[in-house]
């Protein structure tokens, strides 16, 4: 067909990127953008059943201002986030520093610390509900074997949040460890050796060399962990459902509860958008942190 003997170099076709990105864009429109638009519309409606709502202007947003349950949920969210994030990061860092040394069996140890990441939130939830069962759980049975009294764990408003925090930290340390290990391996060994020759002790090297070198990683991990904590749902849903009372109802639980238990779709949508706003702040912070990290590297 072509009169040329050699085939001519092709020009980049203009349609090509649209074909490659098309499926993603269509799926995005149907299952991401459209639901968000509907959610915004719902937040200005009073809707008990799906579909036919009544426009109520900003009433849902005004309700939020005076809602004591929302205040409880926000406070619980802060407690949960402050309880989980620094703890998981500190343990992850300690493990990473320890496992960055040439230790016997460190490959196996790294894998073991990582294993909890594999389990689904629901699976973690049911296992931990069983372990912390007040009557037959192994936690209380072990305490009894040591001659100590059992704890109420998830059944008391005073201990439920703490138990949840312990469980979520457990799921998260492997992730923090892996990210920190990656960063530690990029610190040149000569730097540490030079510091050792200069007579710096192990702790001094950690404080003055490792911690500052890890600062970009720490800021990324901090923001990621905050976002994870704000979005944590499955484990809480399975273990406490937000109870006892409202003692473990975090914001995302409250959104779910308003939509499905209380059938207040409009109000749930408004609460959801509040959550998005909070997440937006942290995502922007995260991007700034990532950019700063790139500059530093």
């Amino acid at each position, binding site marked *: 067909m072509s009169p040329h003997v050699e*085939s001519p170099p092709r020009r980049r076709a203009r349609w090509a990127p649209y074909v490659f990105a098309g499926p993603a864009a269509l799926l995005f429109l149907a299952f*991401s953008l459209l639901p968000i638009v509907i959610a915004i519309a719902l937040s200005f409606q009073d809707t008990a059943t799906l579909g036919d709502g009544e426009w109520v202007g900003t009433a849902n947003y005004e309700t939020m201002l005076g809602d004591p349950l929302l205040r409880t949920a926000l406070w619980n969210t802060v407690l949960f986030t402050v309880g989980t994030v620094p703890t998981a990061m500190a343990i992850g860092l300690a493990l990473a520093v320890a496992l960055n040394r040439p230790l016997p069996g460190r490959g196996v140890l790294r894998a073991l610390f990582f294993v909890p990441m*594999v389990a689904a939130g629901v699976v*973690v939830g049911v296992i931990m509900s*069983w372990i912390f069962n007040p009557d*037959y759980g192994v936690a209380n049975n072990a305490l009894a074997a040591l001659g100590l009294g059992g704890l109420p764990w998830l059944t008391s408003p005073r201990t439920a949040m703490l138990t949840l925090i312990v469980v979520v930290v457990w799921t998260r340390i492997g992730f923090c460890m*892996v990210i920190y290990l990656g960063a530690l391996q990029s610190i040149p060994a000569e730097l540490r050796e030079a510091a050792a020759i200069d007579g710096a002790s192990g702790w001094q090297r950690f404080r003055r060399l490792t911690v500052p070198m890890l600062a970009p990683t720490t800021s990324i991990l901090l923001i990621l962990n905050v976002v994870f904590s704000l979005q944590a749902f499955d484990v809480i849903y399975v273990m406490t459902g937000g109870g006892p009372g409202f003692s473990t109802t975090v914001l*995302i639980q409250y959104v779910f509860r308003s*939509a499905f238990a209380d059938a207040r779709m409009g109000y749930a949508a408004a609460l959801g958008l509040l959550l998005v706003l909070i*997440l937006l702040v942290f995502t922007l912070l995260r991007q700034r942190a990532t950019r700063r990290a790139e500059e530093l590297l």
Partner: protein
Amino acid sequence: MTRTSERRTRRWLLTAALTAVAALVVFPLYWMVVSALTPGGQSQSSEFYLWPDAPTTDNFTEVFAQQPVWQWLGNSFFVASVGTALSVCVSLGAGYALAKYRFRGRGLLYAAFLVTIMIPIQVTLVPAFLVTARLGLVDSPWAVILPTLFDVVGIFIARQFMLGVPDALIEAARLDGAGELRTFFRVVLPTCWPLVGVLVILGFMNRWNDFLWPLVVLQGNESLTVPVGLSTLTNNPAFTSPWGAVMAVATVAVVPLLVVFLVFQRTFVQGIASTGIK
């Protein structure tokens, strides 16, 4: 001499301490398996034990007989494998377009994708359900598959990786007269197998473990996935030893992923780490 031996002692002490911590970290999963193998009489007691006196597979037999666990596993496997296969294709295409083409609307598309990362599913749950119901998909595995095909994190990982594919390679293919699709499939894709490995493992794990969305769109007991089925079992009065049954299903839910993890440990860790990078 004494200094090296002292150092060796400290190294072994550290290893011992880490092993103790690791045992604590792995304990919940160990306990899941142990409880699945413990007869109801012993697990429903206040006795402290670490291994059952008379291990049994009765919990498995019982729960598999009473609940459609095989069906759940089949559903999970279908949803996870078909969903992952399609989603990886979508992500590779989008990642390639964003990395290697300049086109009208690229910035907008990129920004729009970025925004969806922080929209938690709980916010769009009801509207997404409305869309799915309008499409007549409720209770079908496609209701679980379709809305999760668009995977922003996957697209970002793909884009990031493809930025590293040399432009010279693509130009050379074009000079040889290869068309756009041919260039992609014959030249670009073969350099992307590590990327595909990460995307497949991450995609499969997330779909296998997904809970909230399947919980909302799947209704009949026969059409549930394993995590949803598992959540319906807790405190089910139909069982004589509910916790043993629950732990048996939990074990069945975790073991496939554990095997994947052990076989592809490197890719697995790399994949999870790369979700945190960007």
